[in-house]
């Protein structure tokens, strides 16, 4: 007989649950705008740039590679944003070029001397190893995002709908783009160790994409996205404990199932 409450007796499980209760609503909310702005590729590239960030930290001799990772990601995000706006080549090509280039540099540096296995845990992530002070960082980015969302969400939405129209209404279009890009970079970097490079983008995109299958307005869009995100997170954590599977992938599997369910439900409703 499986004891369905035993997981709660472990401190690491309680910390992980707390972290998930912060990360998942944050991802759910942020995902709505990433999907709206068609930035799925952008956030994916940002996730990959984590490797380069660590490599830069190692080369420069920074003790805490998390710091170099965050700084590099912010610079990378602003750079991508700028190139995108200059409109010289199609965005997905440019992002792809920069992303693969930075991954290659990161891998080259980290694999020097055959030491890459030291860093491989970041590919899959391990939320069970999160500490209280690291949870505090998540709380900070959560609060910053919440404040930004309350103050500026309408502007973001407006510029998504029509840039020139938004500009003509005295909305600081370029600033909004940059601030949002930086916020995505910070969120991705502060949670990447727990979620993993390979699947972090899925967690950002899936809840919002599922929500789009059902929602008819912004209120439903946000509500469903947060619910799907938190549900997959909590259920994924508990299931991973009992099945002995890594937590991140389990969460993404559940989120994917929700996506397909909403897809078929949504399209059958529309017909």
């Amino acid at each position, binding site marked *: 007989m499986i004891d369905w409450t035993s997981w709660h007796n472990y401190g690491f499980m309680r910390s992980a649950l707390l972290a998930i209760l912060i990360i998942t609503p944050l991802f759910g909310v942020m995902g709505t705008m990433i999907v709206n702005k068609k930035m799925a590729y952008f956030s994916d590239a940002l996730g990959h740039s984590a490797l380069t960030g660590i490599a830069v930290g190692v080369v420069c001799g920074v003790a805490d590679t998390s710091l170099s990772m965050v700084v590099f990601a912010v610079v990378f995000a602003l750079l991508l944003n700028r190139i995108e706006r200059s409109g010289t080549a199609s965005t997905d090509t440019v992002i792809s070029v920069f992303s693969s280039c930075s991954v290659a540099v990161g891998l080259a540096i980290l694999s020097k001397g055959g030491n890459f296995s030291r860093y491989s845990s970041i590919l899959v992530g391990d939320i069970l190893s999160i500490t209280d002070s690291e949870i505090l960082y998540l709380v900070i980015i959560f609060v910053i995002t919440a404040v930004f969302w309350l103050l500026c969400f309408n502007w973001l939405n407006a510029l998504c*709908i029509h840039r020139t129209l938004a500009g003509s209404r005295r909305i600081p279009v370029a600033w909004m783009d940059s601030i949002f890009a930086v916020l995505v970079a910070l969120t991705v970097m502060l949670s990447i160790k727990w979620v993993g490079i390979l699947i972090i983008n899925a967690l950002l995109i899936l809840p919002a994409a599922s929500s789009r299958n059902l929602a008819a307005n912004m209120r439903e869009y946000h509500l469903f996205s947060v619910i799907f995100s938190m549900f997959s997170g909590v259920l994924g954590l508990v299931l991973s404990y009992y099945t002995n599977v890594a937590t991140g992938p389990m969460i993404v599997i559940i989120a994917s199932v929700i996506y397909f369910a909403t897809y078929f439900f949504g399209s059958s409703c529309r017909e």
Partner: protein
Amino acid sequence: MRKIIAPCGFHCIKVNHLSVSFGEQIVLRDVNLHIHCGSLNAVIGRNGAGKSTLVRAMLGDVSHGGDIEFRDTKNGRMQRLKIGYVPQSVNIEKNTPVSVYDLLASFESRYPVFLPKSRGLQRRIREALRIFEAEELLDRQVCNLSGGQLQRVLLSLAIMDEPNLLLLDEPVSGIDQNGMELFYDTMNYLKKHYDLAIILISHDLDYVRRFADHVVLLDQTVLKQGSVREVFSSREFERVFMEGSQERWHAKPAAEGGEWID
């Protein structure tokens, strides 16, 4: 919403020596316009004549030479020009969860659209939609609207900001005959009942002939402007719309000594 019964007739908007170039390429040069409140001004010209660039320059979306002034001719004072822009379409794909309320509220208010609807804001949006007979669209998804419905929603949005100048980029497609009639009736209503001037980038010469007060024929620069009759009977008009559009594509075969007319 501002309740002004009629245009005052004393405001005028002047575009002086406006020019735009992208790198080496000159798109607009020395465009001069003089526009009065209460008038419907149509800008016409063939594709690539710089009509859309003129709109973007006036909105400050592309950098340009020259200036735009907005004056009260009664006391000569300069004022800040508020432009209500109505784009051709919006960047909303199928299945996007943006309702008409969300669209208008995002531009019109800072109260976040992801929170429960604000009563006051909803009332203001309803009032604006009512002017264009679009009140029942409030909770519809924007991606499911027809071309004509979307245009009425965008007009409501433009009017909510109480503009001095309404700048419209007329949609090329997606609006049927009835929709066009309704649209031009609305333009007439607006210019009579609101204190604003209208600049319309139009692709439909028949409607321009019937409704415009002032016509501007554009091709890089203003070729001809004036009343409908003046412009439509001018040689410049003939050159742009008669010869240009037909013969350009019907050049004689080279064997007969013909060549592309350009």
